[in-house]
């Protein structure tokens, strides 16, 4: 054979060994996966914990597998249980992760919900960092447990959820702060700031929190005034805003929102005029019994049956039969139950019982006026370069400068151009949006009454 060929032999050997080595390396890298270590660990634990020979035999039969929960309705494949193996085993309660037991899953079975619908992260991933979402190119890392209640709002109405108090609190802060005055949510709200429909999916909790404390810090040039609230309230607000994910879910999950809860019951309660005969929180009629403690006196079956036909369970009752449908009955029952649970005076305020000024105050809150004009029209919200002392004017003294009709016109038409203090600087960012077509006639009237009532008695205008 040609001698030139001989010098090729070492190359054959070298490259052959190199390729063999590389294939082995690739195979090792592919076979060595984090979740296998955790499963081995779990198997060992299981065998060690086995008390009887049968249990030991069961433990020994466990096989190394990628475990996954496939939820086609949520378009999810969650492989979290490949490492979190003891989710459903209460005997692992209090164990360190990943082998801890997951409490409270009786109403949210894993096979129907998976994991990432609430916790976020990357369900398909099988390494710790990738699965928890702390990797590049994954936008939804696991939700901080401090904010986990925001996930409830994907399927539930925040107001109907006694189990998620922070969510309800966040909603209150959201309404009190008047966010809706500038921002649109689910199609209603102002136009000065951006829409909030998907903001929870696009922003991190840290960003939101910073933003609420000082908007211009994270969004240079933002005209939004900082939100004045306690840290706990800002946290609750962050939690609530995180729930605006705009995630389309299938009917089964969203239907939770339409299942009548206490909120719907409260509305029915007001509409049907129950307050004419019954009292709540000391207000209302005296023909029927007070309802504050009704749920303590009777069980759920009794209350439902009572709504169906009062005489059937309460002989001699003079309460008329309303022919409620089953959904309405459920809503009203939930409402009565909630009265004993929440003992929350504002919650049971029904418009019919309120004065015009009180209703106006609710309207002020509903349309987010406080976002710019401050709580109770106190003003003080900065509006750089506005002629009015670089602030959005307060409303305490509108009664001195406007008649009722002028004030109504002003609310309906708004004011796009805000006079500048210094013509050379950019115009003031905040302006009064027109509310024509958005606010109802009755609401407008109530609001005007409320605004007129703000002037403190005996104080003089001092400007």
């Amino acid at each position: 054979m040609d001698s030139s060929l001989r010098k090729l032999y070492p190359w054959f050997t070298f490259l052959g060994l190199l390729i063999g080595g590389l294939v082995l390396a690739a195979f090792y890298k592919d076979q060595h996966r984090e979740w296998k270590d955790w499963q081995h660990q779990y198997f060992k634990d299981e065998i060690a914990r086995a008390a009887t020979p049968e249990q030991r035999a069961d433990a020994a039969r466990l096989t190394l597998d990628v475990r996954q929960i496939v939820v086609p309705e949520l378009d999810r494949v969650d492989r979290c249980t490949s490492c979190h193996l003891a989710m459903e085993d209460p005997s692992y309660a209090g164990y360190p992760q990943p082998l801890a037991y997951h409490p409270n899953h009786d109403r949210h079975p894993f096979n129907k919900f998976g994991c990432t619908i609430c916790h976020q992260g990357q369900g398909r991933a099988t390494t710790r960092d990738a699965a928890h979402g702390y990797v590049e190119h994954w936008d939804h890392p696991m939700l901080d447990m401090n904010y986990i209640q925001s996930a409830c709002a994907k399927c539930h109405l925040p107001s109907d959820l006694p189990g998620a108090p922070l969510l309800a609190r966040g909603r209150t802060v959201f309404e009190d702060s008047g966010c809706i005055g500038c921002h649109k949510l689910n199609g209603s709200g102002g136009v000065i700031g951006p829409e909030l429909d998907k903001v929870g999916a696009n922003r991190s909790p840290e960003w939101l929190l910073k933003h609420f404390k000082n908007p211009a810090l994270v969004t240079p040039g933002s005209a939004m005034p900082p939100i004045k609230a306690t840290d706990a309230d800002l946290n609750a607000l962050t939690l609530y805003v995180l729930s605006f994910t705009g995630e389309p879910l299938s009917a089964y999950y969203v239907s939770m929102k339409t299942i009548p809860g206490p909120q719907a019951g409260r509305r029915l309660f007001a509409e049907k005029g129950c307050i004419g005969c019954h009292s709540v929180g000391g207000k209302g009629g005296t023909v029927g019994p007070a309802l504050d403690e009704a749920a303590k006196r009777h069980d759920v079956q009794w209350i439902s049956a009572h709504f169906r036909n009062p005489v059937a369970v309460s002989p001699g009752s003079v309460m008329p039969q309303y022919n409620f449908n089953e959904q309405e009955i459920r809503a009203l029952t939930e409402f009565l139950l909630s009265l004993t649970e929440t003992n929350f005076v504002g919650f049971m305020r029904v418009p019919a019982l309120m004065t015009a000024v009180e209703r106006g105050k609710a309207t002020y809150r509903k349309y987010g006026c406080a976002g710019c004009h401050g709580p109770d029209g106190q003003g003080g919200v900065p509006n750089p370069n506005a002629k009015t002392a670089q602030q959005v004017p307060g409303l305490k003294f509108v009664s001195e400068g406007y008649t009722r009709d002028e004030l109504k016109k002003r609310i309906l038409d708004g004011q796009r151009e805000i006079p500048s203090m210094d013509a050379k600087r950019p115009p003031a960012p905040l302006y009064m949006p027109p509310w024509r077509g958005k606010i109802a006639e009755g609401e407008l009237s109530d609001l005007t009454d409320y605004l007129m009532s703000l002037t403190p008695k005996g104080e003089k205008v001092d400007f």
Partner: protein
Amino acid sequence: MLNRLWKTFRSSQVGRSIFRVGLPESNLERAQVAVSSFFLHFQPAKVHRRSLKFRTTLGLGLISLYLFLILIATGVLLMFYYVPATDYAYQNMKDLEFVVTAGQVLRNMHRWAAHLMVLFVALHMCRAFYTAAYKPPRQFNWVIGVGLFLMTLALSFTGYLLPWDQLAFWAITVGTSIAGYAPLIGQKLKFLFLGGHVVGESALIRFYVLHVIVLPLVAIMLIAVHLWRVRKDGGLARPGAAQPAQEDFAPAQVPVTKTYGLMELARGATPAVGVNPDEEVFTWPNLVFREILLFMATLAVVLVLAIFWNAPLEQIANPVHPPNPAKAPWYFLGLQELVAYSAFWGGVVVPGLLVTALIALPYIDRKPRGIGIWFAKERKVAITLFSVCLGAAVVLTVIGTAFRGPNWSFQLPWKPVAAAVEH
């Protein structure tokens, strides 16, 4: 022991039916093996000594072929997992990474081999230019080569979309919009490629079918013709080889000095004709062994890349969130850079002229000078012109790849400018 087993097998009825010649032991058998084996018959029984020298071609064409073979092998395996639907494509990538045995390494191999193939086909083309291998009689093989270069780009570009991540989506959006700048037919062409006005489900299925069936078939055909022509045009270009006056298929008129089989007579200028036989060596084993070594080296490099570097995968495609800047695949970034100056010049004129010039090249520059010689002095003008164009393409590509930040503004690669946060 192994040797004995092999001999027993070879002499059995089955063995004889498979291997006509067997491992050749005499020169006659070495000649026979090249002619009678399907896989070896692309090459003549004997080749010029020069063909064995690495310096002659740097192995660039073969490396391109090997990369193509690696791509076919890994690509077919990937097809078992891939569903060309926008709902599944990205999830398939995640499954390959996280649960499919060797899925990630397969995808890495496919990705890196694809990038390498674009690179090596381009280098192979440069080699053919700088050694004047496109001069008669190899003009048309150069044209086929240009076709293969375009085919490689098309294969890589169509494959780019398939993972359906942000990188894929926006690269294809940018790439096809460059095609849209062509006058008159541009927008129609774009519509034809995408099956719509934007990248979506129909674009994905179109790119998939092109990527796994149409383009590979065309490429295989062209490669077969390309290789066949190399042989029929007298093997690798080398200085002093007899230049055929015309295509001549009549064996009787050829002064045959030496033949190894009927196939050697098919053409006037066979490597064997008019050449000192001492300069010729048997293809088996001299050439074949070297070719196998080169394949092993190519495979090793691809494996190293695939083991240590993962193929990129960004967020799932999101048509309302373009990255800033959105970039085409790297081999089109030179064009995108030009498009940034002028859509018409960068998107239409320059690429059109380049392809036309490449195709016309062997018919314009046809004086038989410097054939088979690297950077022949007699070809100063041609070499300078080509080098300037090549340099410009490289510089533009590098600028587009590394020096362009948000809004296509200039940036230094080691000091990237952060994209402005959107509100």
